[in-house]
């Protein structure tokens, strides 16, 4: 579990995490199974996550964000991934391109429901579910952890998104 030092808490239920790395693995259709299999194995994930699913990895999580794409989020600098021959796919470091916010449950569900048309009822959004949607017109990747909802948002939008979420919190009283 990530240690407290990395969590800077602004308001009680919205916090930002830093110090993680995000690697995108994009494979060609016919070589996805093989490429994804080797990545999953290398990062300690039990299986290749299906669409809309996240798979626990050692000190991180493996997200399926596109039929041909995996995002490996590692909270602590883990070992390098096996290189991927270009005729199977390509990799890209996106660590600097996002911010990672976490909103504590149960406030997270109500708060997010103010910004997007996702079905957040328990059966439709269980722990481990990954959703690609937009919050306040900002494209985000969010997934359900045990006690939080995590949100990866483009870095340039992070201040705008936080301000919107915090104002929504005030509105709810």
């Amino acid at each position, binding site marked *: 579990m990530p240690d407290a030092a990395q969590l800077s808490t602004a308001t009680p239920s919205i916090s930002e995490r830093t110090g993680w790395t995000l690697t995108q693995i994009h494979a060609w259709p016919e070589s996805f199974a093989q490429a994804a299999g080797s990545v999953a194995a290398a990062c300690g994930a039990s299986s290749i996550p299906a669409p809309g699913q996240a798979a626990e990895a050692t000190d991180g999580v493996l997200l399926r964000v596109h039929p041909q794409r995996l995002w490996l989020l590692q909270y602590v600098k883990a070992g390098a991934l096996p290189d991927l021959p270009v005729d199977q796919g390509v990799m890209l470091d996106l660590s*600097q*391109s996002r911010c990672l916010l976490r909103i504590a449950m149960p406030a997270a569900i109500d708060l997010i429901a103010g910004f997007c048309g996702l079905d957040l009822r328990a059966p439709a959004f269980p722990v481990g579910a990954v959703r690609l949607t937009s919050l306040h017109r900002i494209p985000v990747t969010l997934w359900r952890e045990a006690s939080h909802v995590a949100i990866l948002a483009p*870095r*340039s939008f992070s201040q705008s998104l936080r301000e*919107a979420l915090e104002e929504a919190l005030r509105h709810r009283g």
Partner: protein
Amino acid sequence: MSTGFRLPQGGLIDRNSQYRFSFDGRALTGHAGDSLASALLANGIQFVARSFKYHRPRGIMGAGLEEANALVTLGDGARSLPNAVASTEELHDGLSAHAQHCWPSLNTDFGAVNQLFSSLLGAGFYYKTFMGPGRGPKSWLFYEHFIRRAAGLGKASREPDPDQYETVNTFCDLLIIGSGPAGLEAARIAAEAGLDVILAERDFELGGALLADTGTIERQPAAQWLASQVDRLSKSVNIRVLKRTTAFGLYDGTVAGLVERRDPAQATTIPWRERFWIVRAKRIIIAAGAMERPLLFAGNDRPGVMLASAVGSYLNRWAVAPGRRVVLATTNDSAYATARDLAIAGLSVTLIDSRDRISEPLHRLANNTGIDLRLGQSVRATLGSRHVRTVDIGPANGQGAVGSRLACDIVAVSGGWSPTQHLLSQRGVKPSWNESLQAFLPGRANEPIDCVGSAAGLWRSDDCARSGRAIAAAAAAALGRKAPVEDIPAPGGWETPIRPVRLASDLNLKKIFVDLQHDVTAADILLANQEGYEAPELLKRYTTLGMAADQGRTSAVPALALLSEMANRSVGEIGTTTFRPPFAPVSIGALAGMERDKHLLPIRRSPLHDVVADSGAHMLETGLWMRPWYYPQNAETVDEAYLREMRQTRDAVGICDVSTLGKIAVQGPDAAEFLDRVYVNGFKAMKAGMARYGVMLREDGIVMDDGTSWRLSETEYFMTTTTGNAAKVMAWLEDLLETRWPELRVSLTSVTDQWAGISVAGPHARNLLAANIGELDFANEAFPFMAVRNGVFNGVPCRLARISFSGELAYEVYIGASHGPALWRALRNTAKELGGCAYGLEALGALRIEKGHVGGPELDGRTTLEDLGLGRMASTKKSFIGDVLRQRPDLRRDDRARLVGLVPVTKGEMFKGGAILAEQGQEDGHGLGWVTSVTESPSLGHWIGLGFIQGGLDKWQGKTVLAADPIRGRSTLVKIVAPHFLDPEGTRLHA
């Protein structure tokens, strides 16, 4: 003339609570559970408004949303609310209301003089006059000034709305609208079948018609039945009950729009005034009840004329007797219960029934309670100025003279009932006219939406309860659940059929008000029909019937009945107009929710946002991004600052935040082939470690965007686009790859936010970078123009390209976004030491004008490659997107407007972007072209600009034309020159 009073006991009000409120400054009191209307009546106040056109005195006539007269303004200043319907406003302590649309006061309103000219002010009179004097439109402006002040109802505040609104998106299996017997039973059955249910009720109490029902439902007293239902609801786990919540619109995909009003008692604890629910349901059940229709007779708009059901509600729900001597006129059985309750309460009741025969039980009811029953009769007219005093009755068939005149202080009327199926009508489902019930019944929707209870034309509460259960069971089954099946009761339920009243021929049509809120009279409908506006929609628009704030809730069917009598076509044949959302007026602020002022749209910030602000940048918001505009030193203006920034950059060195440029990682074996197909110039032959400027066309051959692409390896490019077109280019490239060229193995990823980008330009650019970036040889030969190299800053890898937008020796440095601030501070300090500075957007734009580079104002979505002087970039060895359609004849004409440079003929003069280029003396027409971008040029010592002119340099180089700018009162003689003002040979670039 006060008539109403509070009964000593009864009603769903808390008699211990004392709510202080005021009407037109008069201090009054009411109780918790009162509406503003019930509290006013309890204080003997009935006359509360003036009518729209004739300013006739108007009183409370309804008990809910069907109220057409009692519109008042609540509060004042920024929190005032015009056109509030008194009968739907929940009373709370401190509520202040006052009359509207009357001057100087409610009692003495000068507007009432209009009644003297009623023959002149008939339907559509304003189409027949106000056209002169003269032929021009100015005369109408004069009349309009007065008409606009006379029109409108309440007055809206011009202060910003101080309140907050919230938005909630939610899902459910079944949304039930309305909590009468049908809605409550539907919720119970659906929940017991395991469905996830939302029950929305507009009122602040659950129960609908049951709240005023003194009878029984399923052999239980209505109040007791209701209490047990409400108790069960509070214990149910999968029913969410939303009180004070109006379902205003049904949209595609069984998505419903609801607005919830805050409980006034919680105004201090709940910050939002209204909450906008967007409910995505699998199925919807409309249990919104039915609305009673008024009767048409002369003077039917006088204060004291009320709907019978409203009188029943005030009596039973709020323990208020609206008057002491009640004449109750009905065409159907529904009014008898109210007659009985009035009599039991000790009031004098005369019951006028249009029918000649009624059922035995109703006879017994009338006799047992001392009601003076008169059959086969109907009301012909009323008398009384501020309140009804007498009513004339006569045979219901409209034949024969007035029989007798009865003294009274309340005329309660029931002309039949209209099922509330507005929401279904919004879905395009046409209702069907049922002649025997005299009502439009809802049609079948081909969407999972059902009407139940009196909204489906069932009049008895037992039938309503059963239809709720039956339809809910069917809904549960449709969603794969089990529920006890019941048959759906047939519409109707009266023992004796309803009998509509025919208008007596001798009545004064100008005194029969069909649409109370817009003062539309029977005479207006006759005139509209006579003049050819007889289709329902034409009738509505010509007379403005049903176009007021109540949207014809109580006037639509009576008007059609009148029209059918006049045009002798059946109401079913004529048909009704389409009801549009919203069902009831909705605050525009609630629809906007939080998306307003600062939060209207999110704003993007560069990773260097804070650090450039520390460097003294003034920011400018350019659509999506906030960008550094200029860096004033000791209170420089914009112009002083950007000119200084340009000088320092040209003379020494300048650094600029370019992080907002669109950046796309193009990876894969076919990346080079892909770029070759989208750019006009070739990218396949490029060596790794080089950058190239490229232009992209739209399919129609017009220039879409430009930017540089850097080849990082055999199979990876780093593409940059303009800030403004980044999102459009990304979606366009994804479209091409996925839908047209799926065979290409290419991966596209936006990396705009991954990199902080700093442009370093000027003679000292090399020294500045060399002092800060390690592991990189900056010598000209090692790092030539348009080359791409990697370096390291404080141990962090960064990527550089020797690209110049300013025409100086220049580089663009990209480093991981979080490391950008440190790099900026380092480069900023070195720049200061070298006599340089930071420059912003204004200077960036000016520098590129000096080099004749095209920017936003030139890429206006209408220019071709040749127009921009970039024709020679187009490859002839391969084809590309837009290559065919750019050959169309009009796009190749040599008299098209081409890019040129502009300098003032007299050195010191200036000119501006947006001026029109024209031959001297040519004062009008489109001229020859226009000025796009201008700046003062410190290097050249005068103003310079870019623009377009027909025939371009070939036709105009060296010649003088006029830069006409009449809108800003200026015109300047300018000479056409080559757009490349500074260092055309590019010696600085290659230094």
